[in-house]
């Protein structure tokens, strides 16, 4: 019975399965990224390193305007979502439980629970009516729609940060006759900043990545980068889409790394 000691990390087959899973998770993404630098057109045949497809994509007016549009929407939507999320987080944390608190949580997290296609259809109908009434076709529909589904993503890290902050510094400030605004501006806000930055980054990534709601809400000629790519995928696929994907992927990884550094617990 000597070898009946139990090594938890060595359940048979678990490690092998896990390694296989990681390989399968990364193989497609890495292949995509590597072949975006391929001089040739094939995804299977390497014909030498080149920035050809990146140059191609960047020379394409449709890609350029979709990129600019995506960035404008992501900046505006994440700014609005983060502002709302900061206020809501200040309202719903660090005070005694009050009636309606659960309802506010549920409402804020609602976009996480409803299937995106359902929200997209709902917004299609609503914006259709408003577009017909007002004749306005601009970007604000997309900005507001994006801001709404970004709120929970901005709210969660901000709330987590707030919950980890005790009230003593703020109480000290108000004891020293700081006005509520001064206390917020000079005490709460600086302490909360990493949470706000993290929330804003998540909101930015979520907005930048959105396909379904954008596809339904956008007016004619208002492609964002993801909806442009979706349109291209129905036709013959060129490595140009590879290049755009890889660029977006790179941006996401950079923002995520920053997010993890910001929210990392100092132990």
């Amino acid at each position, binding site marked *: 019975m000597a070898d009946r000691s*139990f090594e938890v990390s060595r359940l048979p087959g678990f490690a092998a399965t896990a390694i296989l*899973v990681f390989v399968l998770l990364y193989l497609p993404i890495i292949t995509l990224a590597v072949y975006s630098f391929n001089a040739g057109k094939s*995804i299977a045949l390497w014909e030498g390193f080149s920035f050809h497809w990146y140059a191609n994509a960047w020379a394409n007016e449709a890609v350029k305007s979709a990129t600019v549009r995506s960035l404008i929407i992501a900046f505006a939507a994440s700014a*609005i979502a983060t502002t709302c999320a900061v206020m809501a987080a200040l309202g719903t944390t660090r005070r005694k439980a*009050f009636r309606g608190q659960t309802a506010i949580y549920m409402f804020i997290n609602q976009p996480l629970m409803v299937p995106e296609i359902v929200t997209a259809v709902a917004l299609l109908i609503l914006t259709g009516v408003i577009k017909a009434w007002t004749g306005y076709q601009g970007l604000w529909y997309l900005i507001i729609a994006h801001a*709404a589904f970004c709120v929970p993503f901005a709210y969660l890290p901000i709330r987590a940060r707030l919950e980890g902050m005790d009230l003593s510094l703020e109480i000290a400030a108000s004891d020293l006759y700081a006005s509520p605004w001064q206390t917020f501006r000079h005490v709460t806000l600086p302490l909360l900043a990493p949470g706000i930055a993290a929330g804003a980054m998540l909101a930015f990534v979520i907005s930048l990545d959105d396909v379904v709601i954008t596809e339904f809400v956008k007016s004619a000629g208002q492609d964002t980068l*993801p909806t442009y790519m979706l349109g291209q995928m129905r036709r013959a696929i060129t490595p140009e889409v590879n290049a755009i994907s890889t660029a977006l992927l790179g941006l996401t990884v950079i923002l995520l790394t920053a997010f993890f550094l910001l929210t990392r617990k100092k132990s």
Partner: protein
Amino acid sequence: MASEAERAQAAASTRNAWLLSTPALVLLFCAAAGPLLIVLVYSFLAKGDYGGVAWNFSTDGWVGILFSRDIFDDTLQLADAHLTIFWRSVKISLLTTLITFALGFPTAWFIATRPPKARAMWLFLITIPFWTNLLIRTFAINEMIRNEGVVNSFLQGIGLISEPIRMINTDLAVLIGMTYVYLPLMVLPLFAAIDRFDMRLLEAGYDLYASRLQVLRHVILPIVKPGIVAGSILVFVPSLGAYVTPRVLGGGKNMMIGNFIELQFGQGRNWPLGAALSIALLLIVMIALIFYVRAATKGSNPHG
């Protein structure tokens, strides 16, 4: 007994809480929750001739989910095409949940049993695909399995097959894609559950001469059950409403509910049916979520 001043202070605090939450609530009401009410209303209207709706009360949208009206004698018949789509959606979503669990459980276990520093690294590696654009991940799978893709070129290159295996635009392609995109959603809650698990219980079970399988079944599974439920719901719910992955990998024919809903607002020009389908999908998701909340609150207290 709270004093008058304390009560006034509590009331002021609650008022502040609501005031501060107002911008977020208004935004979400206008652009997320509120419009759902319009969909509900539309599901009870008659269909317009060129898309849109006619403002007459009608249950045709709801009836149309399961039945189609014969154009000649106006009788109702079960709509086989619709049932095929629902069945495919449920089948693919269930299979996706099962496969992601089969692959995700060992992976979560592996991560949870690494030393702390390595664990953070593995966790980060799971999180990157999680936050990566779903369209890009679907596209990456597309590049792997299409006829001129990586897998077929490789197999042809080594001479194993002479003709490419046709995988794209099949149910299998959608299943592969869904498994790939939703796998991190299974691993993360499983990891959270396993991470809380006291590994000494394993040794205890093992010392009492339980076999590996018995330990797995009687010690591990009951304790990580909340994680299993959470992971399954997190995978099943978005699978059922999936739109992008079936559209890119399934082609026009292998539709799931999400694509079927879109069709009603596009070429199908049957907005009430699309609205009714949306509300039905929403209800199914809500039931799944309630089930999840129940199971999670019951399971969160396994040691009494």
